[in-house]
């Protein structure tokens, strides 16, 4: 018999392709310096998608309002830079921490009810926050948002530059570290109990898993990571507006997971790359109708199947 330990740990071992991918990703701000701005955007969206996948793909909790935490992190980081200090890393920690608290608070709302109620409740939270960011203009700048947020240099050394190279590098480094953390988490006993909850909640309880507590914990972690992604956006664009809470943002991130695949660490990342590049390319050709083409792409993806669409060489593989 093959050893249990080997089989169990096969999933968590680093593959060569992963190493190559991350080496390229971390070097990309220099290799593709002209595209640093879009790299930064992709990275932030990928991190946001990863955060949603933790609850959606790994735990089976649906959400239509994950932008609530993204936006909360963005505003928190921007306000921290304006009122406390401009250090990016402390601002990032603050943004993630505040979102973690909000996530813990909101987790109460998603424990009961069906998927449909969860969709509605999460949507409602994001809408409420968006309205608050509009109304509390003394704090948030209202519809104009918080503009010209001045950021200090990263680690006290690297100033944000106009070409966005430091920004891209900063977002990449943060995302990579958080990715390592998430990777650990999903392959751990804790991660396995989340999958158990997703697959069969009744049985998960029957083997002694405190289901509600586990969901609350992962929901808070997911919120914190979404908050970190939001903080990165606010810090690297020196800007936070009510748009960060927008429904589109929550919906886009779901689309990205659908494109790349849920319950798979690279699903959100691949989805983010594909989605953002498509958006970039199509909107440069036809700025008004790019959503039409995204829609057409999604329909094609569903009909052909993700496997064969993203990995065309599988067209010819034996099935």
């Amino acid at each position, binding site marked *: 018999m093959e050893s249990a330990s080997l089989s169990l740990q096969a999933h968590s071992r680093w593959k060569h392709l992963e190493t190559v991918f991350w080496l390229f990703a971390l070097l990309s701000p220099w290799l593709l310096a002209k595209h640093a701005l879009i790299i930064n955007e992709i990275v932030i969206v990928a991190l946001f998608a990863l955060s949603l996948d933790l609850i959606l793909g790994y735990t089976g909790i649906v959400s239509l309002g994950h932008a609530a935490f993204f936006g909360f992190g963005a505003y928190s980081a921007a306000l921290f830079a304006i009122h406390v200090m401009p250090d990016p890393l402390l601002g990032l920690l603050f943004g993630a921490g505040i979102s973690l608290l909000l996530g813990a608070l909101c987790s109460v709302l998603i424990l009961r009810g069906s998927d449909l109620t969860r969709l509605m409740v999460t949507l409602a939270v994001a809408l409420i926050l968006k309205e608050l960011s509009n109304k509390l203009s003394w704090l948030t700048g209202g519809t104009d948002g918080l503009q010209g947020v001045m950021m200090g240099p990263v680690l006290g050394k690297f100033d944000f530059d106009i070409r966005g190279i430091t920004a891209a590098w900063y977002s990449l480094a943060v995302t990579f570290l958080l990715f390592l953390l998430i990777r650990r988490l999903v392959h*751990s006993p804790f991660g396995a109990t989340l999958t*158990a909850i997703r697959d069969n909640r009744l049985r998960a309880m029957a083997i002694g898993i405190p289901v509600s507590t586990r969901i609350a914990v992962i929901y808070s972690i997911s919120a914190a990571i979404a908050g970190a992604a939001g903080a990165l956006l606010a810090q690297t664009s020196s800007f936070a507006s009510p748009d960060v809470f927008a429904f589109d943002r929550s919906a886009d991130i779901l689309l990205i997971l659908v494109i790349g695949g849920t319950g798979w660490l690279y699903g959100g990342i691949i989805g983010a790359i594909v989605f953002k590049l498509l958006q970039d390319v199509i909107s440069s050709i036809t700025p008004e109708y790019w959503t039409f083409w995204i829609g057409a792409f999604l329909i094609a993806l569903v009909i052909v199947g993700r496997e064969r669409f993203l990995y065309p060489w599988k067209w010819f593989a034996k099935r």
Partner: protein
Amino acid sequence: MNTTDQEIVLSAQGLVKRFGGITATGNVSLSLCKGARHALIGPNGAGKTTLINLLTGVLQPTEGSIFLNGQDITRLPPHQRVHRGMVRTFQINQLFDTLTPLQTLALTLSQHYRHGMRWWKALGNNHRINERCEELLEQFHLAEVMNQQTRHLAYGKRRLLEIAIALACEPRVLLLDEPVAGVPAGEREELLATVTALPEEVSVLLIEHDMDLVFNFAKCMTVLVNGTVLTEGDPDAIAKNEQVKAVYLGTEAAHG
């Protein structure tokens, strides 16, 4: 709770469960001694599974209370009853479809050893858990399919896994809800052997329609009809009981 010389580990007192106007369980009392081999029988719809759901906390009783090792657990959530040693299997397989049998057992054992919150170590990193996994896979004839996703397994293998999961929790009280239901003849013996080989100190409550198994296994039986206890006693007494015969042979209109 030492009523006799034997220690009572699980006792239910006056359990009532109503769904709207329907009484699914009507004033059922039941007790299990340490090491009991107790069978719960009754016709379809007699409320056997409802009773298991009440005992394990999936359902809350309308009235009555449940004691485990002398402690009132009536209001405890299901997972805490498991922590206190009461584990069940399900009549209809409740498995983790996307996981392999190996992963399923490793995760169950991790949870059992209170490693369920460890996020910094990889699953499979613990020597003790890995060894126990291998033992269980061997014992339940799952070794050769241990790396296949559970949803692709044959029914008999899934049934074995269903019971292996419960045993991984090292129960002190084990509630078996029709363990051999639907298992093909060839795989039945494997299952029966594991059920008979359960450690002596484990108290077992068995729900089963298969009378051969019941009479071989049980030292004490409770007959449930229409949500209430018809009678209780040792297998000989039950076999001779006219009322029980009537219920099973259907000469009385008592079919539930």
